[in-house]
């Protein structure tokens, strides 16, 4: 193999299984894994299925596992990978494969529907300070690549999709819950249907987020603390019983 060529082992198959096939791809400066997949499509495997759109790490379409790590293929530069061995490209493990590198991520949209939506306080003035918007703006950076859902061991290893909405949906819930105009309390949902107690904050979601959202520290833990406020704090419980407040 010349220094300007890399070997890619790409998953080919569907829901029932498949195989890893090798392709030799010429390497050029600045090339990313998605470029290599496109080269493979153009030079010998036109039926290779891959979902992509912007090629700028903003649409969240080309999520996959490159050498076992959940990443956006368009953000995985070849010069950051060891090319002395084949580069392994597989579909996201947590979601059912449709074909090759394309997975069915529709469960995420179903999970999103379960979250009680943004509900403004009655009669609220539709105006708020930038300082109050700062926290929730971080969550708006989410590009719905679902890499965090893919790497979360609660979904990936234990397949608790019925009991846990996953980190991406907790980010979404935090975007509503922490919004300065929102008037709804979602702690009951988060504890029961959202399954926030299943998250053991091992931060893999934060590690893979291509938008560098501090998912665990800024979304999940603040929500966990609010759940503690309402369900696990004995003094607060006593205070509510005695005063009937809050």
């Amino acid at each position, binding site marked *: 193999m010349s220094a300007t060529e890399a070997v890619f082992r790409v998953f080919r198959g569907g829901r029932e299984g498949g195989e890893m096939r090798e392709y030799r791809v010429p390497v050029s400066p600045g090339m990313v894994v998605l470029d290599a997949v496109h080269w493979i499509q153009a030079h010998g495997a036109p039926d290779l299925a891959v979902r992509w759109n912007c090629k700028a790490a903003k649409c969240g379409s080309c999520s996959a*596992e490159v050498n*076992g790590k959940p990443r956006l293929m368009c953000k995985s530069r070849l010069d950051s990978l060891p090319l002395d061995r084949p580069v392994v490209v597989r579909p996201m493990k947590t979601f059912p494969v449709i074909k090759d590198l394309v997975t069915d991520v529709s469960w995420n949209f179903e999970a999103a529907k379960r979250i009680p939506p943004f509900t403004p306080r009655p009669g609220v003035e539709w105006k708020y300070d930038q300082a109050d918007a700062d926290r929730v703006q971080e969550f708006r950076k989410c590009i719905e690549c679902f890499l965090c859902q893919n790497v979360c061991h609660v979904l990936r290893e*234990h397949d608790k999709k019925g009991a846990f909405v996953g980190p991406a949906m907790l980010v979404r819930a935090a975007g509503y819950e922490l919004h300065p105009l929102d008037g709804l309390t979602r702690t009951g949902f988060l504890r029961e249907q959202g399954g926030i107690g299943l998250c*053991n904050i*091992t931060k893999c979601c934060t590690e893979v987020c291509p938008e560098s959202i501090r998912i665990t520290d800024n979304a999940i833990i*603040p929500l966990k*603390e609010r759940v503690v406020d309402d369900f696990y704090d004995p003094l607060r419980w006593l205070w509510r019983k005695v005063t009937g407040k809050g």
Partner: protein
Amino acid sequence: MNGSTPLAAGGFGATQRRDAWWIEPAITAFVLGGFVVYANWAAFRNRDFSFGPYLSPLYSPNLEHLLGPGVWPSGLPSWFPRSPAFLIMWAPAGFRLTCYYYRKAYYRSFTAHPPACGVSEGNRGYRGETAFPLVLQNLHRYLLYAVLLLLGFQWYDVALGFRFEDGFGVGVGSLVIAGTMALLTGYTLSCHSLRHLAGGKVDCFSCVRFGEARRRLFLGLSRMNEHHMLWAWVSLFSVIFADLYVLLCAKGIWTDLRLL
């Protein structure tokens, strides 16, 4: 080479990752386990924990000052080790045990849920923090309260570390103990629960009383919180270092240098 491949990874430790993913949890397990062993040894030692005006942070606050010389709380079971460290350490130990950072560290290193990102846990049951005993992690804030109280007493002991027989002075030990306490304070102030209690639970700072002050406090604690892991480790090492420093001085192995 082409070959059939299952989509689901195999048993424990199965992964497509090529890096040495096991190094980080292994080092964490070794260091955390080592600290637990050291802290227990230091607590059971029950001697050489003070030298001149210095008091090991594992034995601070000085219970002899609080309870009286030689006084031991009545009502404790007979099996309870007669060392003041055990009357103190439950609070910082519990605080660290339920800490959001340490939870990540030991879930990965000791329970392997998961051992590393994208690495299989094998076919094991999982209930997260929804059931006993891990549901008790939710009491982290109460251990925070205990540690904040403890910090007040411990800073008093830091001040005493500058009071020598001939009056005010500064020894290397004074600085070691003060530095340790500064790092312990940094770790405590960077706590996620404190950040929540200070302002994290407020959605609209401009809508509440003292909103601007709370926002500034929240932002300050958030900046510290970004480095919670660093605070956790350096404060842990500093406690060992300070305890060893006092121990070596007390045994006459190390000579404390008086600076002022």
